[in-house]
């Protein structure tokens, strides 16, 4: 036993750790660069003595729950959930509570740095903000002058409070303002996007919901109405993105709901399932299709025991007949891989590995149990080449069974969440007219029509095709569609903020190759800037690193997915540590720099003069809240007209302090402000209602109905108009005369007008092109979630000690490591040797079925190498369990092969932990939106 160290921490040392760098306010002002110092009162408040509670929002996972943080003498000491925000209703998970170890992590980026070695070497030197911003602005302007602003990408990554960056870079002139949705989840969103104009179908289990009562009062309703929840390829207990699905699922179960989990692995969510269906990876669409076919074939209007379909959906939808006909047209075709009829039970049984009786029972159960929700997820559908087909069928299943928008049913949370951002998103800049000379001709169009994906390879991309960036960095962009067709430009600047695409953005080696590619002596992508709090792998490839203030040191608003309008504030809790700056600080300072250097696109009256303080900026973002149509039952505000847009604070709307514009159909209350939120525990909650699809309501399709058809013609004022989710892309394709490469890959000339089907890649069981690999590569590889946020939190000590999901387990060997921390000059050896005793740290492992392992002569802890048909490899220790389907390996996403020293102890075990994205196919992306196909791969296993 070691003797306790007595460290005398002097008060000065203590303050150095806990507060802004010495000099405080004066130092900030002296930095120039347009940094606005905190006003003295605000600053004093943050570091005052005593204990206080500060309300803010988390970033430890994309749920970004509302928090109540305890601050003692200026130090954050404990993190609780905010009970006033119905989204998490006072809960906080291990990740959220561990935020202290992110904020105070020794490996946090503390100062701006400029690279001194080669990209990837990890050699940096500390510089002043002045120097860093100067470097960036200088390069950006040179790039703009030489290649055009469109050659700059601003990737605002994973954390959703990105508006200051979007605003700046759209003003700068690039349409490439990106967020991680491009690589996360994308095919999963496609069904709701096409059919509702939405994004995320979730069960109606967020409780409490605030509901207007018959007596006129507003009360919290804690009651669950759900009778059945199906989670397919979705693990909400660990992927806590939709946080209320944790307490909501178990509470709904106790209130009588049945839970069915469809997942190749026995996830934490499956542990509470009444039925676990261990499906073969990549076959969720097959199962969904069989369920839909069963329902259509067996529904009976007369027999209440088979009344699966609720025809009232026809009142708020269109195109069902065409959709159904297209779906049925497959039934008589025989699948070449097994000779069976598409979507029949036998066909699905053969492809999914699930018994036909189980599939039939599942379909019947879902059809007959109401209210119900059919919910699908990221790893299951979002990670697969053909995930779109499942998303579309899943959406249809919820609609035709009458479960959308009924109490206890399913809700598209994108459609009902509060708006935010407004003018500070910078949409106006994207609509600016710009001119380019293409093949000698001068062409005019909008800035947004220069977009590399939407008018390039992926005209139906979810905003952007980040997974395809390595190719674009290497080959450049050629626009194929729109007014700028033929325009070619390289990608010369990549600014990445709170994201780590080297690990998460598709194949790791492809990203490294693209970021390190050279033209002569210079890097092809001439400027790479990394902005974040933790130092992740992508930072190793940056030219400039900027320390962004942690979430406890900044102000913003989060993307959240509740059942109704609700918004909460991320507020300053601590003084900014070291020399970190908020996104607002950084964007405004860079704007000033660009302006000083003569950038004509940056006008002071649009930036720091318009939003002189942080609060001004976020107040602008709040002006559009809640921004939804007033509709549904019980009507939220019985005194106001239906289908008018609601704006303003809950109390002003409640009290009638509004102006009503009958022409614009807007009910304008007092705008929500930062100050208002501060006075209300950081939260604004508007009333819940259901049935919001009727009479347009919240739907955002062209037709304001649920669309089963996606390219159709309507007549308006004697004019024929092309409408539907795919119409605008098809118009682009027709004007250009060529389909996208993705479309060609699946054999289409344009986007389909209704139901479609195609196979996924690298699946020997469903796609005949890959059948030949079945024997040599007997394992399908998928990834799963652990108690971490993607790739950004694996340095957190508490989270490293919690074993999770048979993926993140205490299998570390005993090691003494030469400690490396992120110092002022980047990765710096400290000279200390630290011992990590055996089995005290969780490391990423390869989850394998025990019988499979034994057949291969393996035991838990053996190091193996996985190799794909493309020759990509990764290695890790196997963990043999009963909790996964045979023939499947599951790896922790972001859990292994972590080569940034900023990952602390996780870094120390990089050689024996698997990187799920080392083996992703770098050359294929899902054909419609261009997302990486993380879950489509097969491997052979070799013991090391």
């Amino acid at each position, binding site marked *: 036993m070691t003797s306790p160290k007595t460290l005398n921490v002097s008060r000065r040392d203590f303050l150095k750790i806990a507060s802004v760098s010495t000099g405080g306010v004066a130092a900030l002002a002296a930095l120039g660069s347009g940094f606005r110092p905190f006003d003295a009162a605000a600053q004093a408040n943050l570091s005052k003595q005593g204990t206080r509670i500060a309300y803010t929002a988390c970033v430890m996972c994309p749920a970004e729950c509302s928090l109540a943080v305890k601050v003692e003498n200026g130090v954050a000491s404990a993190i609780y959930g905010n009970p006033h925000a119905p989204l998490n209703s006072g*809960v906080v998970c291990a990740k959220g509570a561990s935020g202290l170890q992110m904020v105070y992590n020794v490996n946090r980026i503390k100062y701006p740095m400029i690279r001194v070695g080669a990209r990837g070497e990890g050699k940096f030197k500390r510089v002043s903000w002045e120097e860093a911003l100067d470097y960036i602005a200088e390069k950006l302007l040179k790039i703009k002058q030489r290649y055009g602003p469109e050659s700059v990408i601003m990737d605002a990554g994973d954390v959703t409070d990105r508006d200051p960056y979007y605003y700046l870079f759209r003003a700068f002139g690039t349409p490439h303002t990106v967020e991680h949705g491009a690589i996360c989840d994308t095919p999963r969103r496609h069904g709701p996007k096409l059919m509702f104009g939405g994004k995320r179908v979730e069960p109606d289990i967020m409780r409490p919901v605030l509901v207007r009562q018959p007596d006129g009062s507003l009360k919290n309703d*804690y009651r669950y109405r759900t009778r059945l929840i199906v989670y397919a390829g979705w693990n909400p207990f660990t992927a806590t993105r939709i946080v209320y699905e944790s307490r909501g699922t*178990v509470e709904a179960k106790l209130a009588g709901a049945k839970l069915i989990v469809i997942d190749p692995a026995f996830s934490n969510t499956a542990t509470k399932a009444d039925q676990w269906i*261990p499906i073969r990876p990549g076959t969720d669409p097959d199962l969904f299709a069989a369920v839909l076919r069963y329902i259509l074939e067996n529904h009976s209007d007369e027999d209440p025991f088979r009344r699966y379909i609720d025809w009232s959906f026809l009142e708020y939808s269109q195109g069902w007949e065409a959709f159904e006909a297209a779906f049925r047209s497959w039934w008589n075709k025989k699948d070449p891989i097994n000779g069976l009829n598409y979507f029949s039970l036998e066909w699905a049984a053969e492809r999914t590995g699930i018994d036909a009786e189980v599939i039939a029972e599942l379909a019947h159960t879902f059809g007959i149990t109401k209210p119900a929700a059919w919910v699908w997820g990221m790893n299951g559908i979002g990670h697969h080449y053909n995930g779109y087909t499942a998303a579309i069928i899943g959406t249809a299943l919820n609609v035709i069974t009458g479960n959308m928008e009924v109490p206890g049913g399913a809700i598209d949370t994108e459609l009902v969440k509060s708006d935010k951002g407004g003018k500070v998103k910078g949409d106006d800049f994207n609509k600016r007219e710009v001119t380019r000379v293409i093949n000698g001709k001068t062409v005019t169009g909008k800035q947004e029509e220069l977009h590399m994906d939407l008018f390039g390879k992926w005209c139906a991309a979810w905003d952007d095709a980040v997974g395809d960036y390595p190719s674009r960095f290497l080959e450049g962009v050629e626009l194929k569609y729109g007014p700028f067709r033929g325009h070619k430009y390289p990608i010369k600047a990549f600014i990445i903020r709170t994201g780590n695409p080297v690990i998460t953005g598709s194949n790791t080696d492809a990203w490294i190759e693209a970021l390190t590619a050279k033209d002569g002596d210079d890097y092809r992508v001439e400027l790479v800037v990394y902005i974040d709090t933790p130092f992740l792998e992508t930072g190793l490839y940056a030219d400039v690193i900027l320390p962004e203030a942690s979430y406890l040191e900044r102000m913003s608003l989060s993307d959240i997915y509740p059942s109704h309008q609700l918004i909460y504030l991320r507020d300053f809790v601590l003084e900014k540590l070291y020399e970190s700056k908020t996104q607002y600080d950084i964007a405004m300072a860079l704007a000033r720099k660009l302006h000083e250097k003569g950038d004509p696109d940056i006008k002071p009256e649009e930036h720091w003069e318009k939003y002189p303080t942080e609060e001004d900026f976020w107040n602008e973002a709040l002006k559009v809240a809640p921004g939804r149509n007033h509709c549904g039952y019980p009507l939220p505000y019985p005194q106001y007209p239906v289908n008018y847009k609601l704006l303003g604070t809950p109390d002003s709307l409640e009290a009638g302090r509004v102006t009503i514009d009958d022409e614009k159909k807007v009910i304008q209350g007092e705008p929500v402000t930062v100050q208002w939120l501060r006075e209300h525990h950081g939260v604004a909650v508007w009333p819940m209602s259901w049935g919001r699809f009727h009479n347009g309501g919240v739907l955002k399709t062209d037709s304001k109905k649920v669309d089963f058809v996606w390219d159709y013609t309507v007549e308006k004022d004697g004019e024929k108009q092309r409408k539907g989710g795919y119409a605008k892309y098809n118009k682009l394709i027709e004007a250009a005369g060529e389909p996208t490469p993705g479309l060609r890959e699946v054999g289409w000339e344009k986007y389909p007008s209704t139901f479609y089907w195609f196979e996924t890649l690298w699946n020997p069981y469903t796609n005949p092109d890959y059948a030949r690999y079945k024997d040599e590569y007997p394992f399908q590889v998928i990834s799963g979630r652990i108690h971490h946020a993607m790739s950004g939190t694996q340095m957190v*000590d508490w989270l490293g000690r919690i074993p999770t999901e048979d993926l993140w387990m205490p299998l570390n060997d005993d090691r003494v490591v030469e400690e490396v921390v992120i110092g002022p000059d980047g990765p710096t050896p*400290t000279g200390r040797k630290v011992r990590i005793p055996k089995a005290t740290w969780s490391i990423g492992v390869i989850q394998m079925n025990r019988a499979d392992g034994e057949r291969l002569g393996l035991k838990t802890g053996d190091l193996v190498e996985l190799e794909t048909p493309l020759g990509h490899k990764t290695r890790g220790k196997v963990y043999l369990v009963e909790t996964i389907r045979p023939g499947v390996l599951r790896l922790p996403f972001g859990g292994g092969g972590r080569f940034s020293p900023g990952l602390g102890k996780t870094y120390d075990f990089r050689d024996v932990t698997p990187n799920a994205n080392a083996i992703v196919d770098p050359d294929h992306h899902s054909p419609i939106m261009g997302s990486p196909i993380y879950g489509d791969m097969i491997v052979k296993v070799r013991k090391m």
Partner: protein
Amino acid sequence: MLQNNESVLDALKTEESRRAFLAKFASAVFAGLITPALTGDVVPAQAAPSEQKNLTDEFDVDQLPEAVEGEHPIRRMMADLRRALQKPMDQRRWGMVIDLRKCTGCNGCNVACITENKLPPGVTYRPVMIETYGTYPNVARRFIPRPCMQCDNPPCVPVCPVHATWKRSDGITVIDYDKCIGCRYCITACPYAARSFDSGYFYGDFEGGERQPYELLPSPEYGENRNRAEGGSPIGNVRKCHLCIHRIERGELPACTLSCMGRATYFGDLNDPKSLVSELIGQPNVMRLREEMGTQPKVFYLV
């Protein structure tokens, strides 16, 4: 070895003799830790009526909107707690109910407890056990948070050679860090492995060598505000869950109860038939861990 407890008590009667006694058993390490008690009684045997005044509602739970039916469980439990605090201490019987049907294995309770009590590396009061059963595809897995059971018949109490641990009249088994000599008999005695020894590690030991700001703050345990960063108790002592005494005595719920992501953790006064915990343990699916040990835990599980 001492003949009987009496001679130990004799030895401990005066500060002087106590030091002498402990000095015989202490290693050089602990020599520096034998200090006079920082405060008098750690916790009073009888709560003075004046203590009731200092109740807090940290997160304004009272201001939550009214419910159609039922209530936010946090509100319900805070009301139960406040009602119990109006009774004399020896009429309260604190207990916990953990509904394993609702625990999602998130470990929020574990980390919330660590941060609330400023626990160092190597000390956890409420780890979450994972039990897995079966053969593919017929498998089951259960998450079992394991705080101190606050046994009515605690095996840890009689084995303590210096009477540093005892069960209060309200049911919580407490530890006097000043009396505890770190012999760890109690750790061995506990059938639930609910006690941990504070070896004196800091998070900074593992990363960078510099202490983290939150581990330089005093811990609120037992209302004593000890700062182990100054090098003293509870380093060298045994520590365990105390149901966040420092919180409940001001009307706040334990950290784990507040945080629980599945809303699976309930706390309250088992002596009050109207409390939520009393209602819950009246169900047929209630059980306790290691019932056969006769420890009479006050932590109940619903399965």
